[in-house]
């Protein structure tokens, strides 16, 4: 869900750690598979991740959700590995595994004791080329994914609202639809659709590997070479041509459904890390919503007592330009319209250069500290490298903090004035239908023998 996206702090070259560029080994196999390898010996474990450059961004209407459906089916085995055996093998090696799909990529990972890392390398090389499943596996997993959509989106007013916000903000670009897909598309997806998606996108030349942990980089690279090396490079997947046109006027959507409290979210089209303004937007996000002393929380939640919560979400490492979103949920008795006005007023203050040097410094400190703290986990380090690589190049990681440090209060004013303007805004509002009287919670204890 939009608001609960990963809050990975960005890298920071300063204090203890040397730059990633000086620590990471990059190696590209002849078939195009790129390896991004980082030795890190602070714990006796390793994380091994295979990233495919395919996500909902590469889908089309009528077949949305295929990337994610395929992600589930990747656990259904190969000639050598039985359905679900992947998970069993990793568990028997004391490891944790999972996978996740986003707009831009699909990632498979296992984290386990570093002396077992070859186990996952063998399994991943196998399923990159030999995935096999028939209807007996497809049919139940297809249902599982529909249950996932019901759980995450259909029964959650807020998730449904953020889905609506994206489809309001984008008219020509696939970021308009949800990663999990529209239910109508999902319900009609076939085994053949999923296999075709696999054949089109799952090749060494459309993937890369990130490995971080307590191993010898030489050994790990040699192992990946011997397992993934023989796989054919594969055809180039079709290019994704869609481009979102400039927005020329506010767009508004309303979600009417049974819910307890309203909710409002505002989204603006903005550049990502490919633009120098990206770092400014990162700082702006921290100024507006980084911690309880940030502007939105302090003003809306604390001082004016209008909101239950308020926050920001910005996608820095996306392939195509994403959104800068601000959101809030009113306290009972307060309205979404009031909050929208207050959020607008806060943006206006930034446009008028009201951000102080101390606030700016606080935002930068939070970002820098967050980076060191996030290095506590090998997994998150690998995740961060993968996200930068998906968005263009993992090497850009080291440019991040210098760019953050260079941001000035003038930059904040300029960027807010350029992007956070009404003509570039989409607003989605959850307008609750009150539950019918007596039906809201009816937890009456059913006498035994009389359960509904």
């Amino acid at each position, binding site marked *: 869900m939009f608001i609960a*996206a*990963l809050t990975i702090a960005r890298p920071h070259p300063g*204090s203890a750690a040397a730059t990633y560029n000086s620590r990471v080994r990059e190696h590209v196999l002849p078939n195009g598979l790129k390896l991004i390898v980082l030795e890190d010996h*602070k*714990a006796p474990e390793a994380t091994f991740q295979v990233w495919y450059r395919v996500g909902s961004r590469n889908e089309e209407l009528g077949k949305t959700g295929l990337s994610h459906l395929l*992600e589930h089916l990747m*656990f259904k085995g190969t000639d050598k590995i039985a359905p*679900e055996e992947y998970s069993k093998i990793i*568990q*028997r*090696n004391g*490891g*944790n595994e*999972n*996978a*996740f*799909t*986003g707009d831009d*990529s699909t990632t498979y990972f296992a*984290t386990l004791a570093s002396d077992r890392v070859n186990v996952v390398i063998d399994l991943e090389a196998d399923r990159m080329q030999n995935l096999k499943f028939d209807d007996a596996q497809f049919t*139940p997993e297809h*249902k599982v994914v529909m*249950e*996932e959509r*019901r759980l995450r*989106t259909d*029964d*959650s*007013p807020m998730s449904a609202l953020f*889905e609506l916000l994206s489809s309001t903000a984008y008219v020509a670009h696939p*970021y308009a639809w*949800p*990663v999990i897909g529209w239910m109508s598309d999902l319900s009609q997806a076939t085994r053949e659709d999923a296999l075709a998606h696999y054949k089109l996108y799952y090749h060494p030349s459309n993937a890369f590997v990130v490995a971080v942990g307590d191993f010898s980089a030489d050994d790990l690279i040699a192992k990946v070479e011997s397992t993934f090396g023989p796989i054919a490079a594969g055809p180039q997947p079709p290019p994704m041509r869609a481009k979102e046109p400039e927005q020329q006027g506010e767009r508004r959507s309303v979600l009417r459904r*049974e*819910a*307890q409290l309203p909710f409002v979210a505002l989204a603006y089209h903005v550049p990502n890390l490919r633009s120098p303004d990206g770092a400014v937007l990162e700082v702006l996000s921290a100024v507006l919503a980084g*911690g*309880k*002393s940030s502007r939105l929380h302090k003003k809306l*939640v*604390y001082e004016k007592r209008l909101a*239950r919560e308020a926050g920001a979400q910005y996608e820095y*490492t*996306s392939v195509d330009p994403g959104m800068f979103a601000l959101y809030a949920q009113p306290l009972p008795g307060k309205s979404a319209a009031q909050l929208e006005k207050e959020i607008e007023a806060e943006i206006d203050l930034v446009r008028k250069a009201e951000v102080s040097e101390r606030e700016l410094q*606080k935002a930068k*400190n939070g*970002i*820098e*500290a967050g980076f060191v*703290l996030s*290095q*506590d*986990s090998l997994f998150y380090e690998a995740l961060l490298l993968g*996200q930068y690589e998906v968005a263009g190049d993992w090497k850009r990681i080291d440019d991040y903090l210098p760019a953050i440090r260079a941001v000035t209060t003038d930059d904040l004013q300029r960027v807010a004035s350029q992007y956070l303007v009404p003509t570039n805004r989409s607003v989605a509002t959850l307008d609750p239908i009150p539950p019918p009287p007596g039906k809201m919670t009816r*937890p009456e*204890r*059913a006498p*035994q023998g009389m*359960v*509904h």
Partner: protein
Amino acid sequence: MMALRRKHGSTGAGRRAFGVALPTTLLLIATMASASPLAVQRRTLNNGARLLVSEQHALPMVVVQIMVDAGARRDPSGKEGLAGLTADLLTEGTKKRTAVQISETADFIGAAFDTGADVDFASLSLTMLTKDLDTGFDLLSDALLHPSFPEAEVTRRREATLASLQAEEDEPGRVANRRFLKLLFGDEPYGHPVVGSTESVRKLTRADILKFYQENYGPENAIISIAGDVSADDMAKRMESILAEWKGVSRGDFVYPPEHAHESEAATIAKPLTQANIVLGERGIARDNPDYYAVTVMNFILGGGGFTSRLTNSVRVEGGLAYSVGSVYSVNKAPGSFQVIMQTKNASAAEAIQRTCSELDRIRQSQVSDEELDGAKLYLTGSFPMRLDTNMKLAGFAAQVEFFHLGDDYADSYASRINAVSKEDIQRAAQKYLHPDNLDLVVVGNLDTAKVSAGPPCAKPAPTP
């Protein structure tokens, strides 16, 4: 790793909701094993608080976790939510700082400073860079020792809590859990969520909070666990100094009241949802139960072991009925709950329950296979290093080992205890602790479609006359 299943932007989606890393903090202990990099140095401060320090110099950071015997089990009757509200308010004003000054100070050093209550304890948690130790410790001791609970902040936080309780009605999993706890535990201390209820929170006053704080926030049962780029000696010196004035009466160990008389019940809550949110279960075990290890392995095979568990295999892999299905023991000081939790489209509710009942029967009636037993042991023991691979996890682990009196050799002996569990032990544990004919059931969903059959969820159909 739950957050992982969401990626930036729109609805990131993933494969599993019910991983082996169960969302109950206490459960983490259930999956820890040998070969400890813990190296915890332990001492008792002059005021009686216990200090645990794990020196870890890989990163210039420190995690501090303070556990105080002030959890929701100590909520007075009718004042449910008091422990939680008290813990929340520790950071909302002290004798020398306003709420805003506290958040400004923490945010300026980029620290994460959180307080909250669990069922058995309350905790303060601070994560920061080593260079900011002085500022961080000053903030931490101020919040712990000198909270002023300003009337305006009490009002603000109470309103926010009431709003959260209202918003919670849109989260069917929480609605089901709340109802289940009430069915199972009634008015016992574990019978309510930490947050309390709308009725009880509405009545909480500053005087209640002050009294609860004075009675429960003493050093004697407190545990201070620190992991990171520090020295144990320096930490001891600093803690003696900043916590010198921390005194408090000891209330003695909490005594959990006798279990209330209880027949299994079923409850339904109607909401316009696409899925039936199902919880079924019964009373579980306390952490000091000698059968803890047998129960851990048994539950791993039954429904705690992520993709390889029997429940996942039956309900998800074979049935295609649920994205998330699993079983959880909430292992506390006193016996907590055993819950099977799942969500399935309304029309499948009865089938999902029936499949669950079959698995509960099966693990009682026949022994698990060698492959299952080996798999569970290999995972539980082999994944140990990953339970301790961050400063955050280390600090939390050490604190819980201390809180539950698991012993200094706990991390080293865990593997042998798990490996000692036999197939016979598992079947015996299943027969002793799983009672399919006496389960409580809660279903939240569209009850017109979710036709849940009457009576206890796993009752055998009456023989046709």
